[in-house]
């Protein structure tokens, strides 16, 4: 009875004492879990990085609804739809305005002394920016002047100097046409695109391959208070079957699901994550199991002197959680560094969001707790006398 009561108070310190009395051992176990955590984060980061990078331009769109060609499922290949569909949409009740977003997937950008490199070009009316780009707020208006462009400062380092900074502008050629970079924005590269530029619609229409009557994305702004679902319905019935109207979240989900099922990179990193998770979880089990197994004699002693089984279980679970946490923290720190390095090296955006960190934490702790529990059940079944 007395022992049962004191259990609540003493299990924590005792669990910690059992873990920390053998310092090198604790260090080894912590390292093992930290590496498992790093593996979980890396594989998760690769997969999410592919999705996040690809859909960044879409999630940055400044629009209530987006019009795309019915067959557009990905950022490439170019799948434009007729501009007049967007004009027709303007007549639909609830629609405030529509705006065209032209995209050249692989234009050639050449600045002095650098080889020409492929760049993705977005073109829209600078008075009504197509993207939410906090870092470039207002810079779009500079594009009113013809033959000017903004360059994505998060592009891969392949283009020479593209940082306008205090300079008056950087001269170069886009598709063989003189162009001056007058500002920067921040968007980021992905698996397919090394860098991005923004030009005005007028500048775009002067480029050799410009499509005047076709557009890649249509941005639809609704009247305040208009019902997005209702407008979508109206568009579906009154516009041609060649276009789709989606909200931003649906568009992002559509492209992500395309990558999941159709892009080898999506499949490869998906399987990578599954295997990485299995291995990571297995390391946690391995570490915990051997950690607890080592303390079987102590556990048996506790039991022999009358501590209840529930106390032993609690003790072992606490050990599991403690080890999970001590391993998680260095693992998380290492992952932050690895994410930064990978982002700089590959141009893939590696976001360590609280949600993802939480997922890995929950996985680590629960795996450690489960394997500790398994080890503990072994301790409970064991005959104390046999353990010595």
């Amino acid at each position, binding site marked *: 009875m007395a022992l049962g009561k004191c259990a609540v108070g003493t299990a924590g310190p005792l669990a910690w004492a059992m873990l920390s009395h053998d310092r090198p051992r604790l260090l*080894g176990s912590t*390292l*093992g879990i930290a*590496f*498992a955590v*790093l*593996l979980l984060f*890396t594989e998760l980061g*690769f997969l999410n*990085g592919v999705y996040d*990078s690809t859909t960044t331009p879409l999630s940055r769109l400044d629009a209530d609804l987006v019009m795309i*060609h019915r*067959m*557009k*499922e*990905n950022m*490439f*290949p*170019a*799948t434009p739809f007729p501009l007049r569909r967007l004009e027709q949409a303007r007549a639909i009740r609830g629609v405030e305005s529509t705006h065209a977003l032209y995209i050249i997937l*692989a234009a*050639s950008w050449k600045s002095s002394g650098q*080889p*020409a*490199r*492929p760049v993705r070009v977005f073109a829209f009316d600078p008075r009504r920016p197509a993207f939410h780009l906090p870092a470039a707020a207002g810079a779009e208006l500079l594009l009113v002047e013809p033959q000017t462009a903004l360059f994505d400062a998060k592009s*891969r380092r*392949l283009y020479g100097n593209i940082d306008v900074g205090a300079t008056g502008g950087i001269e170069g050629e886009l598709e063989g046409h003189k162009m001056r970079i007058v500002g920067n924005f921040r968007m980021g*590269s*992905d*698996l397919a695109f090394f860098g991005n530029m923004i030009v005005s619609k007028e500048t775009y229409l002067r480029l050799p391959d410009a499509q005047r009557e076709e557009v890649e994305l249509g941005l639809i702004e609704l009247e305040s208070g208009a019902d997005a679902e209702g407008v979508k319905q109206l568009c579906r019935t009154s516009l041609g079957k060649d276009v789709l109207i989606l909200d931003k979240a649906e568009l992002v989900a559509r492209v992500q699901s395309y990558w999941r*099922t*159709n892009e*080898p*990179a999506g*499949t*490869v*990193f998906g*399987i*990578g994550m599954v*295997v*990485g998770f*299995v*291995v990571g979880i*297995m*390391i946690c*089990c*391995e*570490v915990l*199991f*051997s950690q607890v*197994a*080592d303390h079987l004699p102590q556990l048996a002693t506790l039991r022999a002197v009358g501590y209840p089984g529930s106390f032993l279980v609690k003790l072992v679970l606490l050990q599991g959680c403690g080890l999970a946490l001590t391993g998680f923290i260095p693992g998380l720190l290492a992952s932050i560094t*690895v994410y930064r*390095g*990978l982002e700089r*090296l*590959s*141009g*893939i955006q590696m976001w360590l969001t609280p949600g993802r960190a939480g997922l890995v934490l929950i996985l680590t702790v629960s795996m450690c707790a489960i394997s500790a529990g398994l080890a503990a059940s072994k301790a409970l079944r064991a005959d104390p006398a046999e353990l010595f």
Partner: protein
Amino acid sequence: MRATLALSNIVHHGARAVLSVAGLALAVLLVYMQLGFYRSCEVSATRVYDLFAFDAALVSSQYFGISDSGTIPRTRLLQAASVQGVDSVAPVYVEFSRWLEPRTRRSIEVLIFGADPASQHFFVPAGLRDLSPLRRAGTVIADLEISPLYSSLSPGIVTEVGERKLEVVGGYRSGPGFAAKAVLVGSDHTFTALTDHPLNRVHLALLQIDNRAPLQEVLARIRERLPPDTQVHSRRHIEARERHYWMAVKPIGIMFTSGILIAGLVSGVILYQILSTQVRNHLGEYATLEAIGWTPHRIKALVVEEGLVYALLGYLIASAGADLLYRVLRKATSLPMDLNPARLITVLVLTLAVAALSSLLAVRQLGRTDPAELF
């Protein structure tokens, strides 16, 4: 006798040993997986050149990789052809287009090559068997080794690229890798009709060099003749550039490279973790052996041997698992994932080396323990 001791030690520990071996197997499987990704990317990077029989190629000074190639004026081909030692020259055109997949009617990107059927000897007997059916406009030869996820192609199928209908009149098996979902080869005239690309701008010019002439000297002569907008490279060099483009410039290669490094690191740690636990669990037995007169050296050898037996068991299971994993990936993506002997041996050597090292590191704790203390 030692080997049987090592084995019986493993057998004796039943469930615990199974868990350890499973752990080792998973660690090795992780390495197999990342190696497979890395090599599939590297191998498929240059696969597209297997379509052609050539010794050297002219490319634009902007050339980055075959899918970001830039173009050169067609006259450069004539300039190169006039150089002594050059047997013949053939233009190749290449662009991405939108392919309407025939079965699901989905829009997918396709890499289209335009080749001159008159330059047959540049393609046959390389990847393609016969270019003559391409003389008919609107016909293509397709890479049939594409993922069943996107499509199944076979000769006779009519497909659409851009707005035009194309008939598949032949096929070869290569696999498009990460570059595109599908690869089609048409005549130069079919190509220009599809893409509106002017035939006087060539993406890649293939050269066949007289095999009696020293390649580097011929290349030097061509280099002298050409203006700076065009570069000439040997086949080996151009393939190396393509590999570099895919593995060091394209994000996917960089991700696979770092994936291998992290997998190697993590697997090394797991191996050490598991094997050192094994040693710790057997400290009592080792101390007994020491007490009955075994030399430390002999015990060390036993420990390493046990480590190697464990690692070997893990390796065998992992190799079977990798075979299965590669099959699944090959089926899903049509990527070249081959469990070839070179890879089997590489992984075996790595596994055993890390296992031996881990066991040696782990056995150091034996030296520190007093036999009397263990009981």
